């Protein structure tokens, strides 16, 4: 240095940045992405946190695109999905779960209104895949296969697409124009759909059409029958045919007093449908208790609100004309209903059996290698049946039998079919660790401004009745999306950037998140402790 130092001074002054305090560190912060519990719980494998983050910013089209990367049927989902995501949502531990399903419906409806479509694939692979059945599993598989560039044909036995969504789920929960719109969006990608085109023999169908692979999704449509001795002019129907006939010209005649036998969602739908058809009384007879009922509690509540009555712990012994013998049951130690020998009678104009459905597997009769277990087709973890190149999913495979599981099966099968057709390894399904509640610092999520609240409470109440009442409007959908905590995934709140006493967090700008400057990070752990969503881990430094 040319500058002469003052008396007793030997060093040049300068910035403390020459002092690399990073050497003090024993723990290092690392940015991570964790799997939000909602995503983990979604049977269709949606990236809920991801699409909510676009919705939060008011970019609904981007939200719709992110959502449909996994599930092509948001408007349907937003009405009939039993939203296990909300059951898992971390926010429920603060106040109430995020209304994921309601936002999904808002996005689905908006997409229909705005005519947002799916792009056809850039490149065709030249491979042909046959999809049997246009229910949610088939539609989902077709969509994903088409996106991957394969030529897809769906053959559907019925007169219209949708499967049980159209011929099972009643209109008051799922308007048919919604199914039409979401199916049309898939066929517009270049998926061929042929109606009234039942596949009787899968082997023949594949050879005749020159298909390289097939995805079977024929559902479960054969009503189960309990043996109930019937005499006189008893009117006994099954739930599936009854609901199916609702799609016809003539509404079925059920009479003034209708008894439904069963305890699942179908029983509730039938009873509620009977009410809407004008029955004065609709009674559900179920052999176990409310707690043991497979139907969802909210559906039961809705039914009870509509005046449906329940007869718990009861079985129907026989039917004679309009009179039924009912035997009272009691639960044994294991929770199974046991007869008590006590009887009563119940009068009704008709009896509807809602005891579940079996799968019609006749199309597989000539197919080698297929294995059937508990009435459904056995599939490998990659959804392939025992027959090479033939995959299956939805209600006909082992499944919880919901629309969402069916969609998830369709997606999963599509990815594996794609891998099979390309001769590639099965796609990796490795997942991030769970973004559990204890990783969050919920302090930072605050009450809403008072002005928004009255609107949102009203909307949330409507939402409790889900599909029966309307959806959210833009204001409250946006609000609801913003309630998401972004569990396990950085939402660029700048906390880490702010709270570092050493300026050792570098902000990379919108969308690019942050980087730790390890030259100066002393490893205090404040960023990790104060990250609201648990997106920073403190990892021991290798010394």
């Amino acid at each position, binding site marked *: 240095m040319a500058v002469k130092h003052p008396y007793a001074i030997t060093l040049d002054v300068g910035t403390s940045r020459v002092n690399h305090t990073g050497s003090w560190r024993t723990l290092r912060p690392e940015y991570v992405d964790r799997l939000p519990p909602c995503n983990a719980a979604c049977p269709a494998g949606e990236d809920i946190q991801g699409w909510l983050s676009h919705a939060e910013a008011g970019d609904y089209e981007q939200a719709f695109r992110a959502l449909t990367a996994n599930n092509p049927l948001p408007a349907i989902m937003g009405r009939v999905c039993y939203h296990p995501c909300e059951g898992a949502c971390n926010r429920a531990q603060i106040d109430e779960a995020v209304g994921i399903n309601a936002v999904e419906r808002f996005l689905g409806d908006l997409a229909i209104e705005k005519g947002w479509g799916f792009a056809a694939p850039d490149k065709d692979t030249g491979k042909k895949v046959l999809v049997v059945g246009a229910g949610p599993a088939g539609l989902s598989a077709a969509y994903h296969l088409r996106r991957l560039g394969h030529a897809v044909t769906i053959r559907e036995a019925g007169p219209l697409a949708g499967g049980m969504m159209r011929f099972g789920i009643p209109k008051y929960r799922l308007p048919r124009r919604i199914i039409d719109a979401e199916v049309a969006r898939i066929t517009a990608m270049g998926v061929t759909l042929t109606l009234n085109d039942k596949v009787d023999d899968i082997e023949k169908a594949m050879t005749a059409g020159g298909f390289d692979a097939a995805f079977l999704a024929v559902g479960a449509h054969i009503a189960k029958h309990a043996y109930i001795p019937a005499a006189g002019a008893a009117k006994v129907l099954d739930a599936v045919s009854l609901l199916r006939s609702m799609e016809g010209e003539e509404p079925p005649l059920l009479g003034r007093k209708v008894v439904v036998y069963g305890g699942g969602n179908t029983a509730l739908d039938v009873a509620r449908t009977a009410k809407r058809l004008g029955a004065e009384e609709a009674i559900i007879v179920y052999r176990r208790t409310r707690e043991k009922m497979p139907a969802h509690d909210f559906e039961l509540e809705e039914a009870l609100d509509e005046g449906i009555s329940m007869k718990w712990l009861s079985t129907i012994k026989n039917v004679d004309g309009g009179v039924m013998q009912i035997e009272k049951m009691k639960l044994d130690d294991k929770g199974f209903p046991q007869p008590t020998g006590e009887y009563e009678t119940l009068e009704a104009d008709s009896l509807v059996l809602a005891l579940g459905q079996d799968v019609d597997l006749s199309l597989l009769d000539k197919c080698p290698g297929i294995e059937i277990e508990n009435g459904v087709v056995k599939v490998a973890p990659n959804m392939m049946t025992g027959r090479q190149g033939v995959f299956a999913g939805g209600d006909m495979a082992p499944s919880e039998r919901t629309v969402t599981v069916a969609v998830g099966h369709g997606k999963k099968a599509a990815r594996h079919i794609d891998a099979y057709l390309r001769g590639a390894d099965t796609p990796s399904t490795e997942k991030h660790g769970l973004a559990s509640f204890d990783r969050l610092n919920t302090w930072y999520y605050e009450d809403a*401004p008072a002005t928004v609240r009255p609107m949102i409470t009203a909307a949330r109440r409507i939402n409790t009745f889900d599909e029966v009442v309307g959806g959210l409007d833009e204001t409250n959908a946006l609000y609801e999306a913003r309630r998401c905590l972004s569990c396990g995934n950085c939402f660029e709140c700048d906390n880490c950037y702010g709270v570092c006493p050493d300026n050792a967090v570098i902000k990379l700008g919108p969308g690019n998140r942050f980087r730790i400057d390890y030259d100066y990070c002393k490893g205090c752990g404040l960023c990790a402790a104060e990250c609201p969503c648990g997106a920073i881990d403190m990892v021991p430094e290798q010394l």
Partner: protein
Amino acid sequence: MSEAPRSMETVQKLKFYQKGTHTVGNRLISEAERNVQASIERSNSLTCGHRACQGCGEALGARYAIDAAMRAANNQLIAVNATGCLEVFTTPYPETSWQMPWLHSLFGNAAAVATGVAAAMRVTGKPQVRTVAQGGDGGTTDIGFGCLSGMFERNDDVLYICYDNEGYMNTGVQRSSATPPAARTATTPTLGTEPGNVFGTGKFVPKIAVAHDIPYVATASVADLHDLEAKVTRAMSFQGARYIHINVPCPLGWGASSGDTIKLARLAIETGLFPVFEAEHGRITQVRKIRKRAPVTDYLKLQKRYAHLFKGGVPDPRVARIQAMADRNIADYGLVEA
């Protein structure tokens, strides 16, 4: 909406949270509405390479406060620093962490030096250049107290910021008049019948500052950046003497984990032990309400300086006395929403 509006009362009871409202930044609001600390443009007045301990609340509080003051003064700011941790860890010769004009003189005269700096700026025709003085609790509540009171009394155009970490930390954790009762320090060891600092001594300087009727007095915390930045900005809008007292946890002196600094500051507020308020011209004008009230044990148990209160699993009666102090603050300042 077709249904009748709910009464405000029921509405208020419902809790709805909105994403990231309390975070440093929020990508959902406009750049201009965000905190200084959220911005890439922040001045980083106190930059990296300083020698503060891991998780130092004072280093954090100083950057928060000075960056906000820099913005409010269009970067035309001079800082005068009392002796103390902040001075020692930022300026071991020949290095400095300050990216702004910064002066150090003695332990006790920061307020007086700042008075001189402000006067110099005035007489040299640079009224736009503003002055802050800063120090720890030692330099403020003990050693520099006379100069501080004089600066208040003369209403000099200085913003004095005290970073209160409740003791003389860099010299080996000795008691100051801001050390709370029962806290263990090197000079208040955990010996005898009343281990730790005694009850009933010390002073709370913000109250004394208010008594000077100066234009602006506030308390703030590193746990509430929004509040802190708003207060610094408000303080900078006044001419005359202003005082801000910031609670800055000290992992070393308090015997706490370095990652708990902000949590401790938060608990100091939420227990009521550190009242956060604002006063103008001698009158309290605003009080920050407790959001989620916590018992003092939540706060005390995270710190080794209070470990002697929880020995042997028997509740020490002095915990109840500390709780009573918090309760008194809550009552005196109205810290809980009625």
